[in-house]
């Protein structure tokens, strides 16, 4: 979307002047004179699930997006905390944040590359299983072994 706005400032020649006043979702196109059959403005078809279809739209996707960013910022702050204040609380928080961030991240990769209802369902089920095992393993490691912070410290001391 931002690219379309920038395009108008980059292209000085040969840009339909209507473009400058255009809105982004519903651009009315003026049909050239030679097309006599349809002298009226062409209609842009838009997806109105969020703003106009208030009843059928859901905010789930948008909330998920925001939650992903909040988690990313949280995970960023955990780096220095883990370095300066290692503790079991930090270990378990890191386990949870890392697993969830990875789960949502791989989820986006699957959304991009896997198509078809059954394939998507299978892939997401597999991802859920993997993330569950990952979280269980990390918690087990925190409980029965040295814990994530200590593990990294030991690894780096070698």
């Amino acid at each position: 979307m931002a690219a379309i706005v920038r395009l108008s400032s980059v292209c000085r020649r040969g840009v339909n002047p209507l473009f400058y006043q255009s809105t982004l979702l519903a651009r009315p196109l003026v049909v050239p004179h030679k097309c006599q059959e349809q002298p009226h403005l062409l209609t842009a078809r838009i997806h109105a699930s969020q703003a106009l279809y208030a009843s059928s739209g859901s905010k789930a996707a948008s909330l998920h997006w925001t939650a992903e960013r909040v988690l990313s910022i949280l995970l960023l702050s955990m780096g220095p905390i883990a370095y300066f204040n290692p503790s079991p609380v930090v270990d378990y928080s890191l386990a949870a944040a890392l697993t969830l961030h990875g789960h949502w991240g791989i989820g986006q990769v699957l959304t991009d590359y896997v198509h078809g209802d059954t394939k998507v369902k299978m892939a997401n089920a597999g991802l859920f299983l993997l993330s569950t095992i990952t979280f269980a393993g990390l918690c087990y490691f925190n409980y029965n072994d040295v814990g994530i912070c200590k593990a990294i410290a030991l690894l780096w001391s070698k």
Partner: protein
Amino acid sequence: MALLLRTFARQGVCISRPHCSVLYRHAAPMGTTAKEEMNKFWSKNAKLNRPMSPHITIYKWSIPMMMSITHRGTGVGLSGAISAFALAALVLPGNYPDYLDMIHSLSMGPYLIGLAKFGIAFPVSYHTLNGIRHLWWDLGKGFRIPEVYRTGYTVIGLSIIASIALASL
């Protein structure tokens, strides 16, 4: 919708100006959701056994493109490594310090150890720094092409420096 409002604000256009009413005057909402449309596209083309148009094989690679896929690659790689570690913790007998001693007893030499540390530190630093760059974009900043390249080079440079610093700890 947020993009729409953000762009209007940036251009200093307020909704009350007459040509803005063109926003919805000739727009017809569709009966299907974007997800349904995407599924229809994929199922139709898969059913007709159509090949995919060449895209990454023919388009000239650019720094932003390479950085983007590297961000994804490091993310998937790091996630896989964490999962492998967690699985190993569940399945393998013994405890972590013993395994570390076992690896250390292979006496790989300082350069190989340094290289291994760099190999761990670089994906982490790159993904973290590029992640910050992504969050910067999510705030709506830094989309001008020169800015994209400038922040990109900064991320690459800082990643290398940070990885070398971490590897030499």
